[in-house]
């Protein structure tokens, strides 16, 4: 303990050589900070995109209001759920503990943007109006508005130009457009956000869904939402359901279903790899730039370092100076990186309707990565210190 206090005092008392060196050469300092900032922004964007993709592709699965989920064994993900027979839901209701089993219909439709008249692909959700499928109060309050035939709720965060249309709907004037050959009316708005596969989403009743999808039968269901009676353990009921139902469907807990979706994105899509690679590139760019700066700095101070060694400073002291510089650079580079990344998130979120946010954990991860980046460059740069041998220099 005493030794620790003594070390602390020595540290406090020492001349901050690394800091002074960095301050003395402003241009070099700015280069290094710019390099680290750039690398950090790159990493932030990559991690942000990856996370946004995971999130945007699991927003509806996350929001499901159910204890257990039934889906086809052939289901790949929310966009390719396939269908299973509605019979399975009736069978499920026989199982003790099951309070209700409702069908959810999902499909991609080509809809015409009422403003631009362009066709884009939208996710269409048909749900039982009596039993709200999602834990999204904004939607559930408006379910009455889609009881009429060919009416839909529209996701205001959909990608594309919908400004005028949104204003009209907000003023209470319904807007009409086309899905396939039918004319539909937008009677309300909600906000979830776009995903990669669809530009946005429309929510309507199961009846309307079947009208808009003439080829789908009421008996072909995308997802089964099971609610349990109070006091029943979801895992146990899941097991008895799985035993009761044939093998053409699988039963998952809600969390299990979210994991199923995430797992599919992570393993089947290149998102994890692509953005992981992007982050790694950012990291490497950072290492290279910081290494350049630090090794140039060591090189240009070789004679001075050799003099320090001749005065009796140890090599570890000089190593300390290099790492001191690395540490200062990582903090100085991280702060603007974080601020710019926050701005870039907002711009990107506005432009793409992807849910980009900066959780504290990601900021902490990138800060640690920055330390690692600068530490690694510092470690490589210290090899140049070998040349600071007083016997060779004089």
């Amino acid at each position, binding site marked *: 303990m005493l030794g620790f206090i003594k070390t602390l005092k020595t540290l406090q008392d020492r001349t901050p*050589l690394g800091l002074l060196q960095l301050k003395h050469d402003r241009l070099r300092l700015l280069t290094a900070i710019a390099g680290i900032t750039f690398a950090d922004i790159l990493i932030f964007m990559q991690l942000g995109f990856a996370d946004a993709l995971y999130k945007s592709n699991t927003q509806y699965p996350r929001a499901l209001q159910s204890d257990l989920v039934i889906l086809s064994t052939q289901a790949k993900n929310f966009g390719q759920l396939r269908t299973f027979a509605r019979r399975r839901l009736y069978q499920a209701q026989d199982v003790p503990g099951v309070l209700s089993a409702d069908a959810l219909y999902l499909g991609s439709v080509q809809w015409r943007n009422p403003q631009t008249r362009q066709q884009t692909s939208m996710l269409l959700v048909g749900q039982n109006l009596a039993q709200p499928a999602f834990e999204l109060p904004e939607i559930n309050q408006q379910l009455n508005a889609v009881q009429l035939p060919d009416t839909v709720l529209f996701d205001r965060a959909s990608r594309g130009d919908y400004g005028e249309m949104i204003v009209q709907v907000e003023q209470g004037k319904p807007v009409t457009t086309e899905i396939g050959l039918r004319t539909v009316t937008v009677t309300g708005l909600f906000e979830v956000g776009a995903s990669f596969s669809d530009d946005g989403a429309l929510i309507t009743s199961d009846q309307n869904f079947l009208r808009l999808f003439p080829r789908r039968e009421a008996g072909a269901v995308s997802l089964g939402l099971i609610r349990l009676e109070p006091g029943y353990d979801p895992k146990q009921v899941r097991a008895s359901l799985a035993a009761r139902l044939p093998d053409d469907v699988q039963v998952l807990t809600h969390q299990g279903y979210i994991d199923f979706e995430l797992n599919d994105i992570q393993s089947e899509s290149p998102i994890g790899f692509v953005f992981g690679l992007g982050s790694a590139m950012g990291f490497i760019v950072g290492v290279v730039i910081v290494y350049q700066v630090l090794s140039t700095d060591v090189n240009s101070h070789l004679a001075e370092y050799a003099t320090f060694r001749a005065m009796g400073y140890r090599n570890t002291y000089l190593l300390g100076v290099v790492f001191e510089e690395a540490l200062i650079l990582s903090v100085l580079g991280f702060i603007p990186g974080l601020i710019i990344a926050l701005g870039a998130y907002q711009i990107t979120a506005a432009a793409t309707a992807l849910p980009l946010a900066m959780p504290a954990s990601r900021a902490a991860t990138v800060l640690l990565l920055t330390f690692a980046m600068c530490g690694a460059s510092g470690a490589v740069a210290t090899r140049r210190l070998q040349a600071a041998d007083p*016997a060779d220099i004089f």
Partner: protein
Amino acid sequence: MSKEAAIVVHQLDHYFGSGQLRKQALFNINLEIRAGEIVIMTGPSGSGKTTLLTLIGGLRSAQSGSLKVVGHEICGASENQLVRARRHNGYIFQAHNLHGSLTALENVQMSLEVHGHLSKQQRYYRASEMLAEVGLEERTNYYPADLSGGQKQRVAIARALVSHPKIVLADEPTAALDKKSGRDVVDIMQNLAKEQGCTILLVTHDNRILDIADRIVYMEDGRLSKPPAPEAD
């Protein structure tokens, strides 16, 4: 005699390179310097003067023979012992080698910081006093780039002497200076060294400063000898 000796070199040989390229640089050096003595070593370039100086200063490890500096044998010493030995010496180089990112005052303080027992404030006062003694009290917060050659060399002297070393080793301290600044620099060295009672070993080609020496030794082709007759210079 040997009790008083600050530096005792006995039968010191030194080689550079290894294998077939191995080349002997110093041959059977014997030299004894008393405490407080000012010794100038001269000789043609490449004769091994600087090599001997770096060996005495502990910048290079001695290979064979005996080398005692203020009573410590440093022939065959470990790197750690050499680092400690260096802290007893003040080194003045041909190039001032001041740290460009540090002010004159901070440069001098670095020489005190290595000992690790002075507080920041003590270092500040000692360094300021030392700079005043070399006539730079007005320039303490200047960076080396803003000082003249002579002033820089005076800061280097302040740096070498501030921790009151037993031995000052100087390698061509006046080589880069004009006649007057060169003279000033050696006068300051001489006065301070006399005040502090330290031993000076100075390597130089500069005939104009030979008068400060108590003794002059001459080195040629790695061997120490008596200085040649003046006309042979």
